[in-house]
């Protein structure tokens, strides 16, 4: 009992993760020579406070960072790192191809189509850091 209590106290993520729902997550399969790839998903925040997604980790990548897509009027597009994606209270944030995404960088191994990649998302709400564990299909 004491151990369970300890575990609960030490990992606020367990309580907090229930407020965040990840829908339709997937990682893009890319050629084996790729240095990076992207993960897409819809993050649903059911809590009354905004939540930040600050990055994440997975065994196949050196690091995972939030990236936004920039677009100029002449059709030039690019990417830029951001500190975090903010998911509004009782709101959602869509990460999709050609738009915002989580970039899996310094790939040790390029995820193959059909595989499932374990991934941990790092979140922050009201100054409290937490983690969400996901199994993300590759396609």
């Amino acid at each position, binding site marked *: 009992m004491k151990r369970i209590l300890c575990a609960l106290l030490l990992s606020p993520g367990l309580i907090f993760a229930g407020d965040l729902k990840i829908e339709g997550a997937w990682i*893009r399969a*890319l*050629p*084996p*020579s*790729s*240095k*990076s*790839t*992207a993960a897409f998903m819809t993050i649903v925040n059911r809590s009354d406070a905004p939540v930040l997604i600050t990055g994440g980790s997975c065994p196949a990548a050196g690091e995972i960072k939030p*990236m936004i*897509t*920039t677009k100029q009027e*002449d*059709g*030039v*597009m*690019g*990417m*830029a*790192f951001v500190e975090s994606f903010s998911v509004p209270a009782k709101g959602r944030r869509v990460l999709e*191809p*050609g738009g915002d*995404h989580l*970039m899996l*960088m310094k790939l040790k191994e390029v995820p193959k189509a059909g595989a499932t990649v374990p991934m941990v998302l790092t979140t922050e709400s009201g100054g409290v850091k937490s983690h969400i564990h996901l199994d993300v299909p590759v396609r």
Partner: protein
Amino acid sequence: MPRKRHRDARARRIGLIILAACAIVAAPALIILFSVAGRSSSPWFGQYDPDTHPGYNFALTDQNGKPVRLQDLRGQAVLLSFGFTRCPNICPTTLGNLAAVYRKLPPAAQERTKVVFVSVDERDTPASLKEYVPFFNDRFVGLTGPPADIGTTARAYGASFRKAPATGGDKDDYMIDHSTYTHLIDPEGNLRVLYRFEQLPETEKIADDVLRVLAQAPGKQP
């Protein structure tokens, strides 16, 4: 009785005035409506260019080290876009959509269609293109060349690109901001249709445009 006739005449007059007023208001509205309808009834999904503008006859090198000029692709519809192989989001989205367009074409039309991806990255080589481009479809063509030739080609197609600041400590680890338009070039080598990045998921409609461009070619059936 005369009073009633008078009233009838007045009512008719008012009716006529209302009718005339309606016509005055309605005529321009109808003209606008028809012209808008006329425009939206264009069979082309992308931005169609009815004038003849020959595409720049680039001379670059493909993923097998073979020289390729636009001129060599006469008789084929060409879907041309710019990007780089380290591009993890935009270019795979573009090439993935173009692969879906290609799959929707009947085999005879596939034979007469080339998807061409020009790298604007001086780090790319035929070898890096060979690892990247055929992943989306093994019939796609990746092109590279000396930076000056790439620059001239990009400019000629209205494409621009620039290095984004390096992300980590490694100065070679940078991304490239680049144009995301796709050109559909007709079998005569003319720029025909232009697609914005956001239009590319409409692969069925783009496949229809490709078939139309192939059908326009003199003496050829798609």
